[in-house]
């Protein structure tokens, strides 16, 4: 079956011959960078290097779809005014400053966002990737979610306090982030992405309660789904068991979860709502620090639990051995023999 068709059909809830295997977060792995010759920091800023590393997921890791739009989750925050750290081969860039920590007056998402930050580079990357893969591989875009953007703009502790002391301020910040993510997803669609992944780590149950998630994050994600035509996948870190129903009720096409979450239970809940599930091989315990056998076993367990897309549970640590990552495809292929 054509790899792109398999991914798109599965995302639409149709029957396919095999569970697709790949990554819906980030795969800027040092060993892969060296193998394909596209290393950070160039692989963060140069469209050719970005595309080469994106393709390396397919060529060297056995992934059946590929990623555009870089390897970190700062693209929206950068356009809003956050300063970023300098990336190295072993480290993605991260947010260094919170430009609205003193006052949220002036938070503004520009209409010409696609002329700013790394968006022009990503636009060119999409063109290169489309030339390379045509209709053979699906491509996804990605950015940080509205609450994660908010934490970057005002500081995580500040936004956490405001949830209880000034919720209207939080709603204002999230509204700005929501519009940004809508524009970002529509940008990706215009450029040829097949689905769009929202990474929302700051909204994880390790930080906020399910009630807070329902009140603040769920409406924002639902608004993004409502205002975009591209399938949306929602990734939330940590043990998401208590918010899986709410994640699904946003109307997303799929959710992406970590190993801390109960995959079997998540699949049951998601399928009852016509939502698919990505996940959930441990990135630190298995892919980074584990043995190939441990990676293989975790992948096999996810398949047994009914996962729709076999992927790492979060962004793959740069120091992860390729041999470990390759166990995902090996486990998937063996599972269907």
């Amino acid at each position, binding site marked *: 079956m054509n790899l792109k068709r398999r991914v798109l059909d599965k995302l639409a809830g149709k029957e396919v011959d095999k569970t697709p295997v790949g990554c819906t977060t980030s795969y800027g792995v040092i060993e892969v960078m060296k193998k394909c010759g596209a290393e950070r920091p160039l692989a963060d800023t140069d469209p050719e290097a970005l595309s080469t590393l994106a393709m390396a997921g397919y060529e060297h890791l056995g992934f059946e779809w590929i990623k555009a739009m870089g390897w970190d989750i700062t693209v929206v925050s950068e356009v809003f005014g956050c300063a970023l*750290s300098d990336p*190295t081969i*072993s*480290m*993605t860039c*991260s*947010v*260094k400053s919170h430009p609205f920590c003193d006052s949220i007056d002036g938070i503004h998402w520009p209409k010409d966002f696609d002329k700013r930050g790394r968006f022009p580079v990503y636009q060119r990357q999409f063109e290169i990737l489309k030339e390379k893969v045509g209709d053979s591989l699906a491509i996804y875009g990605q950015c940080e979610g509205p609450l994660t953007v908010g934490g970057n703009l005002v500081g*995580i*502790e500040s936004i*956490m*306090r405001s*949830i*209880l*002391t000034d919720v209207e301020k939080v709603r204002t910040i999230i509204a700005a982030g929501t519009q940004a993510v809508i524009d970002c997803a529509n940008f990706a669609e215009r450029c040829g992405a097949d689905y769009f992944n929202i990474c929302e780590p700051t909204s994880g*149950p*390790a*930080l*906020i*309660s399910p009630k*807070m998630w329902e009140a603040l994050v769920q409406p924002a994600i639902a608004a993004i789904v409502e205002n975009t035509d591209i399938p949306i996948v929602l990734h939330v*870190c*940590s043990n998401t068991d208590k918010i899986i129903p709410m994640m699904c009720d946003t109307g997303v096409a799929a959710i992406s979860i970590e190993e801390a979450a109960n995959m079997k239970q998540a699949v049951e809940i998601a399928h009852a709502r016509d939502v698919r599930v990505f996940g959930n091989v441990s*990135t*630190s*315990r298995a892919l*980074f*620090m584990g043995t190939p056998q441990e990676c293989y076993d975790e992948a096999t367990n996810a398949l047994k639990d009914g996962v729709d897309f076999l992927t790492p549970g*979060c*962004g*793959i*640590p*740069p*120091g992860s051995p390729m041999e470990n990552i390759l166990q995902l495809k090996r486990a998937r292929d063996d599972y269907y023999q």
Partner: protein
Amino acid sequence: MHKKETVLADMARAVVDMDETAAAKLAETSIELGVDAYTGINDGLVKGMNIVGEKYDNEEYFIPELLLCSDAMTAGIDVLRPHLPVKEQKVKEKIVIGVIQGDTHDIGKNLVKIMLETSGFEVVDLGRDVAPQKFVDTAVEVNARLIGLSTLMTTTMGKMEEVIRLLEDQGIRDRFRVMVGGEPVSKGFADRIGADAYALNGTEAAKTALELVATF
């Protein structure tokens, strides 16, 4: 009207209720009633924060609540600190903590700091994006025996190991106990890099730090 017997419980309650104003006011009241400041901190404010820690462990409270409770405790401590007798301001066990180089996420580290201070440690907080050598230099400089390393990102975990190697290279590994924590970190990782302990969260970090002190 508060009495000596109830003011401590009310101080604890103010912390649990995230009421900064009440915590400060009750701290003043406790002084007026003749409660010594040390008792006010430990049997009032810190007791409240311990209840908060339990609520966090039981998923009744999350990070927003924890931060506001901590603000209330700090407001009360700020009132009581000048009233501590000099003899009570004894030398505390020091711990140097920080977020390892390359990572700017510090909320977890800040929560660890709160719980360590609640448990009586003097915390030397190096902040975020801290070079491995800086941990070593500071620990030596301030004469701390404990070092706490935090990271949220898998990309920066490797830098934690550098701290251990630096201590070994300088021949001073035995003088320190090193504790690691953060979302991607595990007991297995701590063992692998040669750290002395791993802590899951702030409350665990405080308990673990106390256990580590006992190993000297």
